[in-house]
């Protein structure tokens, strides 16, 4: 019997719903957070290179059993499935694998726990010991995956295929094995070809996100991080430029005054027109409403802006497509402009160590206020009070009954109950490790947002993010490139034509383009189609969707706030966490050693 099963929980939360967990914990609710995976944040997670290779291997975890013997009188049972939301996974390795000897010797080198964690983890506050233990275990559980040398290998994991649980108690000793060594990356000449063995050796330098998003600097996520003081757990990097792919070339999009001033591709008259358009579109005007319902492109054309500017405004600033209605295009342009200049020359921020840091920050906040975390702990079914149609308890994968008053579930758990009339939408994703930037500049540490309009009729518009090693998401000398679009067909079919034209791969030997060293394609279910309600579930069971395809985090944060207010209608959503020195402990004043003030957001310049 586990220690946590004897207590009654106000809220039991499963998987990645960390913002709600933090918010509930913050206002004094007892929160138990279970995750069937060995890592946090489900599809929001980020992985080291080796971690990602393991993730690719073990996609399916599910088992079904009968738990009726745990029922009490007047109770009923809802079985929970756990279908994976990842499909069409394909991996390509375009770099040679070095001899086994070196790798073997590398494996024997041990590393300290602190190094394993990276700076993010060392700042765990009171109450989070459990969390940091869990985090360290996550790192240890990463396994090596055998990838054939030379050429490429393709892993097709059928989503229907139900494998037996691969993570068992027995797997733990293996997981405790030491990781690849933490050798500080030397500043090698960037042109030197990086081998697969090097990628594996430096795998710890990578933090590869499953989602591809950026933080709008006035978006609801940033505001929430500031408001709740959760921002103290993370650091951020400014996205330094916005690029676009046009006429076969990558160009920089001028979006601030300074950019427009310095731009060499615009004439002075275009500069004036662009600036005037951007300033005028901040205000809503009557002549704009005349275009409501008509395409934004038509509106732009009527402003006599010229081809150059139309492209920039439509695809890179509004980030919409040709048929988007004017009011949507304008709202999107306004949002872009509103976010501009708060922290840097683009409207975006990116968290150091990857987007996976963000849910972990909220987990930390939850833990600081007493939330309990259990990883690799699956949920099997819900126990219903037949009289009230409320969930009274849950049964976990170890057959324990946990009483609770509210339950939050990841959408995959209730997949079968979903309305079949609306088939799930998917996102096509690709992750590339490349050896150079798409658009050279004075700095090798640019963080770029790249907008790519549909390359052919009917093809999706792709959003690409190119991260340099300064974001602590890839080893030095490499760039981590995320591609994301709404699926038309499989991720490979959607994205590989673009990748072969923009990058150099064995299929396209074009000099001067960045070479792809390693590449992963997969489809992920689009969480934006998901509704919080309407799953025919008990009233105190809530469902939270997975990541959506938008660039920002509006969908997730709005949903989290909505769920929070359903659970606790009277409470404030993530009020500011007090400074450590202001907390009163039983029997004495706070230790006065804490930092006096923390900036609202720590920015790496």
């Amino acid at each position: 019997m586990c220690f946590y099963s004897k207590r009654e929980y106000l809220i039991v939360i499963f998987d990645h719903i960390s913002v709600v967990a933090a918010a509930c914990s913050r206002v004094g609710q007892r929160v138990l957070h279970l995750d069937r995976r060995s890592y946090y944040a489900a599809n929001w997670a980020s992985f080291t290179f080796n971690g990602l290779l393991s993730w690719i291997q073990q996609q399916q975890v599910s088992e079904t059993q009968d738990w009726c013997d745990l029922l009490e009188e007047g109770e009923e049972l809802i079985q929970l499935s756990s279908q994976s939301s990842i499909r069409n996974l394909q991996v390509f390795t375009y770099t040679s694998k070095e001899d086994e000897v070196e790798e073997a010797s590398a494996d024997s080198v041990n590393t300290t726990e602190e190094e394993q964690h990276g700076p993010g983890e060392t700042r765990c506050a009171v109450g989070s010991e459990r969390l940091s233990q869990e985090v360290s275990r996550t790192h240890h559980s990463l396994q090596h995956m055998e990838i054939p040398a030379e050429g490429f290998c393709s892993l097709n994991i059928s989503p229907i295929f139900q494998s037996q649980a691969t993570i068992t108690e027995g797997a733990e000793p293996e997981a405790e094995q030491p990781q690849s060594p933490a050798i500080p990356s030397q500043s090698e000449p960037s042109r030197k070809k990086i081998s697969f063995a090097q990628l594996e050796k430096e795998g710890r330098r990578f933090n590869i996100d499953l989602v591809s998003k950026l933080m709008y600097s006035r978006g609801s996520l940033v505001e929430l991080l500031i408001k709740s003081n959760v921002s103290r757990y993370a650091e951020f990097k400014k996205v330094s430029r916005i690029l676009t792919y046009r006429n076969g070339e990558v160009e920089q999009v001028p979006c601030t005054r300074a950019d427009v001033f310095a731009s060499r591709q615009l004439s002075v008259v275009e500069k004036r027109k662009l600036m005037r358009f951007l300033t005028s579109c901040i205000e809503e005007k009557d002549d704009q409403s005349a275009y409501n319902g008509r395409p934004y492109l038509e509106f732009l054309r009527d402003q006599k802006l010229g081809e150059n500017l139309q492209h920039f405004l439509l695809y890179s600033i509004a980030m919409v497509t040709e048929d988007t209605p004017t009011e949507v295009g304008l709202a999107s342009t306004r949002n872009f402009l509103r976010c501009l200049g708060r922290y840097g020359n683009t409207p975006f921020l990116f968290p150091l160590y990857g987007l996976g840091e963000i849910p972990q920050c909220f987990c930390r906040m939850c833990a600081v206020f007493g939330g309990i975390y259990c990883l690799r702990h699956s949920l099997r079914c819900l126990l219903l009070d037949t009289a009230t149609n409320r969930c009274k308890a849950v049964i976990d994968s170890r057959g324990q009954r946990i009483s609770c008053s509210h339950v939050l579930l990841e959408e995959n758990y209730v997949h079968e109950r979903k309305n079949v009339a609306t088939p799930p939408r998917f996102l096509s994703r690709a992750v590339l490790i490349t050896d150079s930037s798409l658009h050279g500049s004075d700095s090798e540490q640019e963080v770029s947002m790249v907008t790519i309009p549909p390359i052919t009729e009917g093809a999706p518009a792709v959003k690409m993010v190119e991260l340099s090693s300064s974001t602590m998401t890839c080893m030095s000398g490499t760039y981590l490139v995320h591609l994301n679009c709404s699926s038309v067909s499989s991720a490979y079919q959607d994205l590989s034509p673009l990748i072969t034209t923009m990058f150099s791969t064995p299929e396209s030997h074009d000099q001067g383009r960045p070479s792809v060293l390693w590449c992963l394609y997969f489809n992920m279910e689009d969480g934006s189609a998901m509704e919080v309600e309407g799953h025919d579930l008990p009233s105190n069971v809530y469902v939270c969707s997975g990541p959506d395809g938008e660039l920002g985090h509006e969908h997730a944060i709005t949903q989290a706030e909505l769920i929070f207010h359903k659970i606790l209608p009277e409470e404030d959503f993530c009020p500011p966490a007090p400074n450590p020195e202001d907390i009163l402990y039983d029997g004495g004043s706070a230790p006065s050693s804490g930092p006096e003030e923390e900036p609202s957001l720590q920015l790496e310049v």
Partner: protein
Amino acid sequence: MHGRVKVKSTAQQEEEKRKEREKKLKIYIAARDGCFTKRKEGVFDDEALQLTQQLLSSNPDFATLWNYRREILMHLETVKEVDEVQKIYEAELLFLESCLKVNPKSYGSWHHRSWVSARLPRPDWARELSLCDRCLSLDDRNFHCWDYRRMVVKMFNVPVDQELKFTDRLIGSNFSNYSSWHYRSTLLPLLHTTASELPPMQAESPKSNRVCEEQLLKEYELVQNAFFTDPNDQSAWFYYRWLLGRAELEEMISCLHVSREEEQVAVVFSRPVNVQSGCLLLVLDGQPHAVEWKSIHPRFKHSPVWICNLPPGTISEISNEHNLTVHWTEKHSRKDCTLFTGHAESWCQDSATDQELFRSELSVEKNSVLQSELQSVQQLQELEPLNKWCLLTLILLMRALDPLSYEKEMLAHFQTLKEVDSMRSAYYSDLCSKFMIENTILKMEYAEVRVFSVSDKNLSTLCHLDQLVLVTHINLSCNQLLCLPPQFAMLRCLEVLEADNNSIGNLEGLYHLPKLEAVILKDNKIATLADLEPLTSCPRLKRLDLRGNPVTQLANVESELAKLLPSVLDLLL
């Protein structure tokens, strides 16, 4: 409310803070008093250095303490080895950095830093330069840092082109920062002289202050990018005007006038000067004459027009011819003129047209450059028809190119300017008046007449009166003039003044005008007899029209005027 974290109340926090402050204050005062005592006793030891450091690190604006610190350091210089001194000063620089973090605009800290840098036995200027870069990246308008940086650049002998690149970078990141543009304007002339192939003599002339054409064209492109991107930003416009501007006029004598009847000589200079110190030499028929030079109005110590009276009888005989030369010894400038037999007066004047006097505001050497600049600004004006900077620059460019043919467009642009920038409408009126007067002067010169007529042109002010020394008839009627300023006394030859339909209430400038005979002031604002007082200094005044002025409503005005101005025969009331 179980499980909630208990947080201190604001009252508790306040109380804690207050106690903390009190404690700090006590320590501070004790340290300060300690420093003052030590200084009084002339102690220059390490402890004093420690104490002042503690105080200054919390309050870097305490000038007395910086002074004391310098005294200590200067004392230590005399007793320590060079290597030790170097170490002490290096530590001082480190300490100053922490002070600048507390207050990046502390006068005391920056001053002390330049003092230390100058005294450092082995200065590391590269480090100082990078410190400035860091400070300016945090606040690109910190003038303390700009000043310090200039000092470092001078000491370090940083090449001009490198500094120019530095301004490129700063302007690139924020083109609204006038500090960077201004710095550029000080660098460009230096760049030119180093690459100059001009002989040294010519290089000293004011025109060498210009920038070579190739660089100039690059600058135009840069600044155009700025004002097209944001035409409301004044930095770029000011820099643009500097680029288009010309070196200042040479100082010289531009006109010499001699009148036989008054036996008076008037000298006009290209700019206001003060010549009383005997630097102006008058030679009449080969003989130097000691004369007393007076400015045209007692209000002016500096004036562009100076007059002197010759001893009575020197040139009064009409049958004599006289050669007159005026030397301005200070500037090696002279003017000659000959008063021929039978002539009442004579003069020698440089023409305003030849000197391009009124183009001096904006005038690069080449007309073609100006023409293309005009086209760009016109293009911008089409896009931004109501932008005041654009309109004003357009006017200036038109004036530089051809003041007369663009007159109509100029007036239209001024009208728009007054509407879009109504706060400065009076400024635009004055500027427009100035340009209209310039145009009238040019027209008068082309016509070779001595009649100056600007009626009904909305003049709000009078200027360039030094160009009107030879004018005999002036017509200023139907304008918005409020006064005839003291400068009006420069019109040495004026006989007839028409100034009806204005708002003139002040005649200060009608002062000792020797030839003034008729003054038409119908429909103005002259209210008292005292306002007419200056007219008593004009000996030849015969005709005065005061109809429609408040002064005519006074009792006994006619008899009072007869008393005040006995020479006036034709008085209209």
